[in-house]
């Protein structure tokens, strides 16, 4: 009796997770692939199997490729400085500091703020006519910038939002693994006369490599799904279009636009799968690139 109980119990313990996930997580995932092979609209429903037609259409869809360029552009512009800053910040937070918890909480504060709030706040900070950034540019004698109006400037503004929100969080994750690095390594390096900078490159960065890979994969997943910041940066009735000429529409925004404004579920599902493949490809590139860190030096 007791034996049976002990054998069955583990499954009873894990089943709530798996049952709910199967319905609301796994099923939608697989079903997206099925939907992407159909002509399927929000109101009319399934209009029949079309095979890879949606995928073929996507290849020639200039709006999609523009959104793709925007997404990758913003992602690179945001992620590279973010990871560099986070690694340096982690190193700084790892020194013997007074009021350690205060500094750590300080750098995590932006992460507590919702993306929606971040989009709205930065939208006003980067406003063309009365925004604080343009005012500051004016006081040092520079011309104001129409942040929303151009491709490069909107990318930059959106990257600043992403970096503001995530740099501190990543720094803390890196710090956690930095604390596991044996102190003797630094001792030995110091005795050998290595500078702080040299220690950083020859000990810290290689030791952090697995965590840097983890953090950059998470940043990749987040960056390629970018949606709320550009949506609320634009504001207005047609915010989902990402600016007057789609200059900051991301793939995720394009997906939602196709699905809910354009009512094309099948086509939007195709966008979703391509997005997924993109994340996978970037994750692999990430790992491959970061593997080479060890050979630096």
């Amino acid at each position, binding site marked *: 009796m*007791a034996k049976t*109980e*002990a054998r069955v*119990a*583990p499954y009873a*313990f*894990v089943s*709530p*997770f798996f049952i709910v*996930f199967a319905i609301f*997580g796994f*099923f*939608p*995932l697989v*079903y*997206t692939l099925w939907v992407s092979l159909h002509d399927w609209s929000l109101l009319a429903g399934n209009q029949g199997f079309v095979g890879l037609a949606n995928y073929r259409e996507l290849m020639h869809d200039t709006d999609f490729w523009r959104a793709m360029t925007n997404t990758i552009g913003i992602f690179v512009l945001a992620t590279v400085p973010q990871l560099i800053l986070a690694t340096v910040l982690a190193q*700084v*937070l*790892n*020194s*013997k*500091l007074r009021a350690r918890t205060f500094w750590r*909480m*300080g*750098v*995590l*504060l*932006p992460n507590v*703020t*919702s*993306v*929606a*709030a971040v989009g*709205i*706040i*930065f*939208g*006003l*900070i980067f406003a063309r006519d*009365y925004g604080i950034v343009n*005012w500051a540019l004016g006081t040092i004698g520079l011309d104001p910038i129409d942040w929303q109006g151009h491709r490069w400037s909107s990318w930059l503004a959106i990257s600043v939002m992403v970096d503001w929100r995530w740099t501190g969080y990543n720094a*803390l*994750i890196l710090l*956690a*693994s930095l604390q596991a690095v044996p102190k003797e390594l630094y001792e030995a390096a110091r005795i050998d006369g290595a500078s702080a900078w040299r220690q950083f490159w020859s000990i810290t960065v290689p030791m952090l490599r697995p965590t840097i890979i*983890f953090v950059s994969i998470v940043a990749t*997943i987040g960056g390629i*799904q970018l*949606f*709320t910041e550009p949506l609320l940066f634009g504001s207005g*009735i047609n915010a989902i279009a990402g600016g007057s000429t789609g200059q900051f529409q991301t793939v*995720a925004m394009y*997906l*939602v636009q196709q*699905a809910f404004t354009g009512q094309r*579920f099948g086509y939007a*599902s195709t966008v*979703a*799968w391509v*997005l997924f493949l993109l994340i996978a490809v970037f994750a692999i590139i990430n790992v491959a690139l970061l593997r080479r860190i060890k050979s630096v030096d």
Partner: protein
Amino acid sequence: MLRTKNPLLYIGLTATVLLSAAPLYFMLVMASRTTDEIVSLPPPLSLGGRLFPNLDEVFANPDVLFGRALVNSFLVATVATVCVVVTSSLAGFAFAKLRFKGRNILLLFVIGTMMVPVQLGLIPLYMLMTKLGLNGGLESVTLPFVVAGFGVFMMRQFAQQAIPDEMIEAARVDGASTFRIFFSIVFPALRPAAAVLGLLTFMERWNDFLWPYLTLDSEHPTVQVALSRLSSGYYSDQSLIMAGTFIGTLPLVVVFIVFGRQIIGGIMEGGLKA
């Protein structure tokens, strides 16, 4: 490790923390001004006296339903938090301490769930909710989030080191069932991790935007959706947008200031690392 008494470190850190807090400060400044003041040059950098009148106006707007949105967000986040903590503790304990067939594969699956982007499932989730008749209501933004792969993984990591095997063995010898062991020994021991997981889940649900934005109807907004309504469309009075954003952000900032030490502790113990 760098040298310790370097004043440059403190200057750098102070600048970083100021940069972290500055947008929140500007939000408060703009929330406490009239729109005329916000759109004047130079932009105001100190607090004005309009915060409460602005808030009154935000709450009075019938298109935004801000008061209801606050209650909705609170309900949704609380239900999800309680469920995630319970289901994650159950599964995390099983993965950490019980032996059963398929354990490793199931655990790998749990970890895999953390890698999948949300957008991938949006469309079928929308269709599913429509079939179930739940689109538009609060159930649609609650049900999918009563479990979390991240939570299961985090509780497993914690249970592995926090609960000695001998304790479970001893209870078993005394004839306790697995459920009994969970409720009287394991769950109390998991409490610190459960607190961190609960805080993080609450924050994540409170801040969720994309799915609620797609599924909720105008009668059932959450705070983030109400905020997007304030800032888009026919209605875009900047000081009111900021007043709403301030109220939508305030609860979490307060929670963070009160429990920040624990959250930081949770991150440092590695609970947040996959």
